């Protein structure tokens, strides 16, 4: 017997392109995040 059809289908499985996706940020957001990081080392 040869079985034909869909053996498995799960659309919930994680996709690589979504896992590594870097969210788009505006310039202001990037500067704010950068300042936030630099503030951690401010004396």
């Amino acid at each position, binding site marked *: *017997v040869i079985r*034909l*059809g*869909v053996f498995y289908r*799960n659309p919930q*499985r*994680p*996709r*690589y392109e979504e896992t590594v996706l870097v969210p788009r940020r505006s310039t202001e957001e990037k500067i704010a995040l950068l300042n936030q990081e630099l503030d951690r080392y401010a004396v």
Partner: protein
Amino acid sequence: MSCSLLYAAMDDDAVYAMGDYEAAMPRWCPGCGDHGVLSSMQRLLVAEQLQREQTVFVSGIGCSSRFPHYVKTYGFHGIHGRALPIATGIKLHRPELTVFVVMGDGDCTSIGAAHWLHATRYNMDLTVLMLDNNIYGLTKNQTSPTTPQGTSSNTHPQGALLPPLNPIEATLGITNASFVAQTAEWIPGHLYATLRAAYQHKGFSFVRILQRCPVYTPGIFQLAVRQPDTVELLVHDDGVVVPELDRTYTKQLRHDPLDMDAPGAWPSPRT
């Protein structure tokens, strides 16, 4: 408005017909299963009205890998076993593109086996067609990993020594597999419905297409072709349902595609 913008606007409104996706005349042998797969794929392109400039076909090396030459979209006829790395690269850099991958059994399960394993695990949104004629055809009759045990070829004149690798069972066993299907070139309705389900799935859709090579493996699926009761269709609303086949293919099994454990409980051969 510049000429290029004018053409872009016209293209957006275009309604594509079958001929709009036809490119060069296929060079495959008369009777080759590749012709049927190409027709079903062109039918899918029409049904989904895929924009030609937003669609890419990537292939490796082999008879089936001539596929990109015969579809009027973008294409990349790559190197042996490396269709999947090329396709994942395209998809990573141009995620808006629809990417199809066409490989043969030697291309995918032998030299490209490592890429097959990891591409399945990465689960990127690719529609992957593995055209399995159980032999290396382009290079003239060498044993492939799916060649049935005992089949004579140029590399094994006294018959293939090992039991064949089962691509469906292998793919089901890979971490993060998300779509695994099998269809056959001699049942066009099922082939088309399976390709469409694979295309509509968001993730790595692996479709093994059983097909005959009229030169080296003409009799390989003849029993299934002539006796439909040797074929069992897996049916489910989330899988493939083709009502027109009900009269011919009476042996059907209702299978929920979310149930990964079920195939393991089926009697051998499971696929």
